[in-house]
């Protein structure tokens, strides 16, 4: 039987890169996003590149009440789910507009957690599956530069870790992978001067996701250098950290 992957947030650079990595290995691909018809060219791309089987699905991560129906409406319950849903917003706005702040928190945490809850339960019933959550190194310590986004990602990282624990402990056959990409050259980081050694291309992230699923990894940093950087950042004593701008 053909294996299948569902990409939630497929209009993102990382989502498409993941779709390509799985399609290249023969997976059938379900692309889900808001305004799914806009994915028509990405569907063509996966067909022209890999002869993949591709279907498009409408999903709104923020509309929790629609999530059960969304999953029920998929052609098959996929073997692998990659959720790249996320929204950074503007930190300055997030500091003053409660609506913006809530949108960032809901997009990065509540929405993805809700979708994964529905999918995890279905996968447990089936007895197999892998859920891949794209979280962020920004969630490892709150910083002035993006703490609203970072705190939401911290919540999502903790959610993934707890879900992984629950599913592994009970030997459900369902596995959870946490992906911490670090800097990635995407639309979200356009125009930023990112250090080349720390910045991954979307394709690199896509391939890393595929490999992590194949090898049953728990947590991956796409570029290993980030593991050391985040370790160092976590070790800085709070009385110092609070005065720093990093």
């Amino acid at each position, binding site marked *: 039987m053909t294996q299948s992957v569902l990409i939630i947030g497929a*209009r993102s*650079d990382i989502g498409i890169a993941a779709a390509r990595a799985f399609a290249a290995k023969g997976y059938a691909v379900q692309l889900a996003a808001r305004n799914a018809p*806009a994915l028509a*060219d*990405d569907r*063509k*791309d996966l067909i*022209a*590149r890999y002869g993949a089987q591709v279907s498009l699905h409408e999903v709104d991560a923020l509309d929790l009440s629609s999530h059960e129906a969304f999953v029920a409406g998929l052609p098959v319950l996929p073997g692998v789910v990659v959720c790249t849903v996320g929204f950074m917003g503007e930190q300055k706005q997030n500091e003053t507009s409660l609506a913006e702040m809530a949108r960032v928190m809901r997009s990065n945490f509540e929405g993805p957690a809700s979708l994964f809850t529905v999918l995890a339960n279905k996968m447990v019933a089936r007895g197999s599956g892998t859920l891949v959550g794209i979280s962020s190194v920004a969630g490892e310590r709150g910083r002035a530069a993006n703490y609203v986004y970072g705190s939401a990602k911290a919540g999502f990282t903790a959610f993934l870790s707890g879900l992984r624990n629950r599913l592994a402990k009970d030997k459900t056959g369902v596995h959870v992978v946490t992906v911490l990409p670090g800097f990635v*050259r*995407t*639309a979200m980081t*356009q*125009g*930023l*001067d*990112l250090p080349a050694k720390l910045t991954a291309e979307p394709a690199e992230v896509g391939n890393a996701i595929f490999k992590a699923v194949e090898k049953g990894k728990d947590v991956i940093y796409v570029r290993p250098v980030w593991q050391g950087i985040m370790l160092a950042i976590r070790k800085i004593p709070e009385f110092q950290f609070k005065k720093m701008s990093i």
Partner: protein
Amino acid sequence: MKLSGWGRFPQAECAVVRPRDVAGVESALARNAGGLIARGNGRAYGDSALNPAQTLDMRGLDRVLAFDEQTGQVVAEAGVLLADLIELFLPRGWFPSVTPGTKFVSLGGAIASDVHGKNHHKHGSFGAFVDWIDVLGSDGVIRRASRDEEAELFGWTVGGMGLTGVILRAALRLTRVQTGWIKQTMRPAPDLATAMALFEQAQDATYSVGWIDCLASGAATGRSLVMLGEHATLSDLTEKQHADRWVEKSRGKKSVPLDFPSFALNSLSVKAFNTLYYANGRRQAGASLIDYDSYFYPLDAILEWNRIYGRTGFAQFQCVIPLKASHAGLTAMLGEIARSGQGSFLAVLKRMGAQDSPFSFPMEGYTLALDFPMRQQTPGLFAELEAIAIDHGGRFYLAKDSLLTPERLRLSDPRVKAFTQMREASGAAARFRSLQSERLAL
């Protein structure tokens, strides 16, 4: 963010927008007032794809939209790299019909520069295999341009350095091949006249290119290694190569870890390298079978090789001299380079075939390309070389250029006037601008 071309000179602080789709490009253009330039993978050497006010990073548009297994026509967005096309379609028996010396160029960049390859004498430039392009114009309208429809826009855009509009998509014809291997024949030439005679005798070879020792002087002026190539057929392969017919076994990439200190490349080290390289080539004269990467893209194996020139970067000089004046012009230029003692080991000589395009670089004759580390005396040397090229009816490759002046460009190329008139009349001049177009008053 700070951007430069492949030569790392000049550098400029540019506001970069990275759209993911055509709608994103349209809205960037609609919001833009001061002009913008599209940028592919940054492989033009100078300032062709830099605009401080707004640079459009087209790498987000990299969808392959269709592929016809019968004709080899691929339809793709401008940000796709030739490397992507090779990885996808070589295992299905197709190879780019024309490829420059790096596979890390974008489709849009290859069209905008109308790049050429080792088969120019036989098959023409990249544009010869482009069936149509979709171009977003200054008026916000997307036009499909081909040799039949919007033919004028097609002509100006192929080789138009992104200055007619934003190339969004293109249809490109690939060439059928039986393997990913190349039959190479290496012929040493002790001087320029012999090298040119070898090129003239090799008009039927699919590929031909020469490495030229630009520091050799006297009787050895212009000594070269001329490398001819043909796509290998299945029956040409050894058993081991047969098992890797499409050259898919990955080879490790080396990269230059740090900027070389600028004294690493001096006339003595380059002279020593060139002497050894030529001697080695002479020993290896004759036929061999090598993979396409080693034949077409030897430098791609060393990622970031542009860093060997150090922090100040480098400039590349590339001109083409019409056939009749080629020997005299090349001799004069090689003399000037040898005198300056500044040449690099990356110097290329190539016979070009006839081409008649509104604004593309190639014409029938010989093209010489070489790098110079960016130093105080470099602009002066370029001015000397440019004067010689102009005296011999030559012209310059804008995809490599970072130092030309508007006056010398116009002296070298009477087509500039019509190009700038077209830019004014179409409204492109106000919307599509690069540091290069401003420097050259295009």
